[in-house]
């Protein structure tokens, strides 16, 4: 069934069944991915999928249901399920379907050119990356991951209060993981490129970054267990920030599930820290003109000079706190209910260079963190993570380090930031937010090794 016909019928049946207001969130995605191994395309995939989320107010409660087929049976199912789901809600939080708003800023999130570059050229890029990576160093054995992915998505939000919005975005992603072997040592390293302009996919630069990261780790061994000053390399700092970003989610704050509860207007970080959510960021991957409830996206300063100034809100949490939504309503996909997430979340860079950050008698540079989904507790703020990196002696990197953990608590970590670098970089996307950070110097963290 055609989308508009489906929505009209759905709203009609919903009204009959007693919904006061209703909304659909429709998401259409087209994807292409290919991987190359030993100069052959070993994986190739194309897809076109769509899904629709329905939500509606029944006796003041919001019920949700979703489907991937737009047929008559689904209309009945959506209305029936959403009604039953609304009846199940006991939370007394006030919820509503939003009226149309003004003040949308358009963003440049779609490039027609990316789709016009042939799949063959994209595959050729991967072949060249592999060839280049192997030619750079004899120890490079293979590329355990050599992927190009292109994703194109359109989101539409329409409701019975007259909102009717749509936004289309696309992005190309290259992810390379190199395996190098020397004697008994296996090392891996990666490179990531996200861009809408295919010219940014420079095979030489990608191969060089991944190979350098890989071979620099040969000879790594643990260090003695004790506390060290730690420099979290930009991508790592972003990984950690992303894993803890739920502490700024107003829903968690209101439900006693965030360690930032009650800390507004207090110093929660060192005064070097400015933490920003910016949906119009230059070079940002999470740019958007509206959020999942159709609220115009806007910039929010979460931490200014170390002081906590705001949380991230959607309509429900904002209403509860008596403020305006910050435009951070999110839906992981059409299968999810409305939640909260950042757009482009980042710590503002300064002018401090990486060399200045590591100018210490003894310190650890952490370049990779593992186990972010398990070794970290966003409610307590405790973390203990497997890490790799380098030992710094007399202001210079002296050797590679592996088989260590780095542990601490988020509250202490933020307050103990002694230096913020100038090298802002996005980390590997995980979840719905894009997170970036410059390298950070932390006064002290516990390192476990020997």
């Amino acid at each position, binding site marked *: 069934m055609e989308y508009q016909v489906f929505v009209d019928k759905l709203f009609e049946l919903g009204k009959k069944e007693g919904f006061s207001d209703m909304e659909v969130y429709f998401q259409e995605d087209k994807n292409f991915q290919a991987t190359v191994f030993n100069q052959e395309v*070993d*994986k*190739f*995939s*194309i*897809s*076109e*999928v769509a899904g629709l989320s329905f939500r509606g107010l029944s006796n003041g409660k919001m*019920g*949700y*249901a*979703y*489907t*991937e*087929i737009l047929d008559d049976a689904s209309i009945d199912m959506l209305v029936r*399920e959403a009604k*039953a*789901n609304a*009846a*199940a*809600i*006991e*939370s*007394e939080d006030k919820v509503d379907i939003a009226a149309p708003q003004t003040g949308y800023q358009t963003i440049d999130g779609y490039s027609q050119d990316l789709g016009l570059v042939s*799949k063959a050229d994209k595959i050729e890029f991967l072949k060249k990356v592999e060839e280049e990576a192997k030619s750079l160093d004899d120890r490079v054995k*293979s590329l*355990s991951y050599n992927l190009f992915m292109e994703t194109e998505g359109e989101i539409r939000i329409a409701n019975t209060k007259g909102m009717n919005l749509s936004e289309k975005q696309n992005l190309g992603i290259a992810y390379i*993981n190199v395996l190098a072997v020397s004697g008994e040592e*296996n090392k*891996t390293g990666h490179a990531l490129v996200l861009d809408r302009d295919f010219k940014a996919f420079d095979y030489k630069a990608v191969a060089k970054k991944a190979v350098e990261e890989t071979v620099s780790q040969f000879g790594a061994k*643990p260090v003695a*267990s004790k506390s060290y000053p730690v420099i979290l390399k930009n991508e790592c700092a972003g990984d950690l920030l992303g894993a803890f970003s739920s502490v700024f989610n107003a829903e968690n704050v209101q*439900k*006693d*599930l965030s360690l930032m509860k009650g800390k507004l207007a207090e110093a929660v970080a060192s005064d070097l820290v400015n933490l920003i959510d910016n949906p119009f960021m230059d070079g940002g991957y999470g740019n958007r003109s509206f959020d999942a409830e159709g609220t115009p996206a806007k910039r929010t300063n979460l931490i200014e000079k170390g002081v906590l100034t705001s949380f991230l809100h959607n309509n429900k949490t904002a209403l509860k706190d008596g403020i305006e939504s910050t435009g951070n309503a999110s839906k992981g996909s059409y*299968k999810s*209910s409305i939640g909260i997430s950042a757009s482009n979340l980042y710590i503002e860079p300064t002018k401090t260079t990486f060399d200045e950050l590591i100018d210490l008698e003894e310190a650890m540079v952490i370049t990779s963190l*593992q*186990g972010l*989904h*398990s*070794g970290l*507790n966003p*409610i*307590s703020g*405790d*973390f*203990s*993570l*497997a890490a790799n990196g380098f030992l710094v002696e007399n202001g210079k990197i002296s050797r590679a380090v*592996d*088989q*260590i*953990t780095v*542990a601490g608590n988020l509250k202490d970590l933020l307050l103990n930031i002694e230096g913020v670098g100038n090298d802002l970089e996005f980390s590997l996307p995980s979840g719905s937010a894009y997170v970036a950070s410059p390298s950070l110097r932390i006064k002290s963290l*516990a*390192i*476990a*090794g*020997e």
Partner: protein
Amino acid sequence: MLNESIVKEVLQAALSTGGDFAEIFVEDRHDNHISMIGEKIETSNAGRTYGAGIRIFNGNNSIYGYTNDTSRENLIKVAKEVATSIAGVDKNLGIDLVKKCTTVINPIKIMPNEVSKNQKIDWLKIAANEAKTYSKEITQVTGRYMDYVQNILVANSEGVYAEDQRVRTRLNVGAVASANGEMQTGGQDIGAHLGMEIYNDEALKAIGREAARVATTMAHAELCPSGKMSAVIDNGFGGVIFHEACGHGLEATSVAKGTSVYTGKLGQKIASDVVTAIDDGTIANGWGSFNVNDEGELPTKNVLLENGVLKSYMIDKLGARRMNMAQTGAGRRQSYQFAPTSRMTNTYIAAGESTHDEIIKNTEYGIYAKRMGGGSVNPATGDFNFAVLEGYIVKDGEIKEPVRGATLIGTGLEVIQKIDMVGNELAHGQGMCGSSSGSIPAWVGQPMVRVSEITVGGRK
């Protein structure tokens, strides 16, 4: 779900450019999710997932396409589109579909739709209430309930035509305890490839109590010390150590490409004598069980390690081609949106001889990890990590004070050689395992095991 003549047409279209194997996977799935915070239902969501994926092999390479428009016309269009990336000619392979006879190894008594939403909400409340009333220190309780019924059809050009219905449900409780200005958490769940018969008051209350017990214990725990020491890992979810340290590295995905540290080690002694490990997709109603896998093959009981000797890998169809070995029933995927690959099902270290008391009594100094969290591994280096959710110091053969915030790290090959005692009580725990074919349910299991030395990452 899709009639045989359409299936045949689609497979033929997929083979039109010279592919030598084609497969179609159709999925129709219904999900229910309910979440609760602070004894109140916060969200309730339900929906239908429906679509098809088409896969073609050309020698050792694989191409895949998926869509949720499963009309005959569109499926043929997608099949042809996917096939365009192979530049050959039709080999005119004949396709004779034979319906696969399967036995139901995961019988379901009460289907999710036979029980009202209110009943499911009551279950959540029974469990949550038990957590909330456990102690005054419990400041917040969260609960999540989910069930799904997934109907699948897999057919391929080798003649396989198989259907399966998977019914899974899971309920978990999270508790937050606050003491001395610190918040600590605990959680527990029940789940299986089972229907609503899994729930009863006693089981629900037990998970509520356990979540609260862990949270309050951890709220009073000291920071964990760091460094190399012995680790005693309790039975059940502790099996995540084998899953991460060894399991992922035995999947054909990385073995076939030579990017696993376990490549080429078949028949070699790689672990200590006391380690026998099994991946068993045939455990009746196991969380990671199925009647037919996502490639239309039957599950197997696959002995991976026997007394420390590497006996087998976990191999899917593509892996079988690349490795020139038989598939082992390991082909799994999250949904039609993923091409299947080699995955674990219910993986565990088999029971040994030692009692729990013997293991503790024989441990001079180390950490006792009573409850484990998740972990991850880099199969190319074997470096793994996993989190301890509830830990204690063991000293002179006795369990001492609780400790928090620890992670255990090591390399796979090293740790499986250092497992020196294996307990006699096997148990399993529900996990969601993520890899290139998506997030799938998998049991991890083991009896209590002791690792003679491992790096413990604490904060002291």
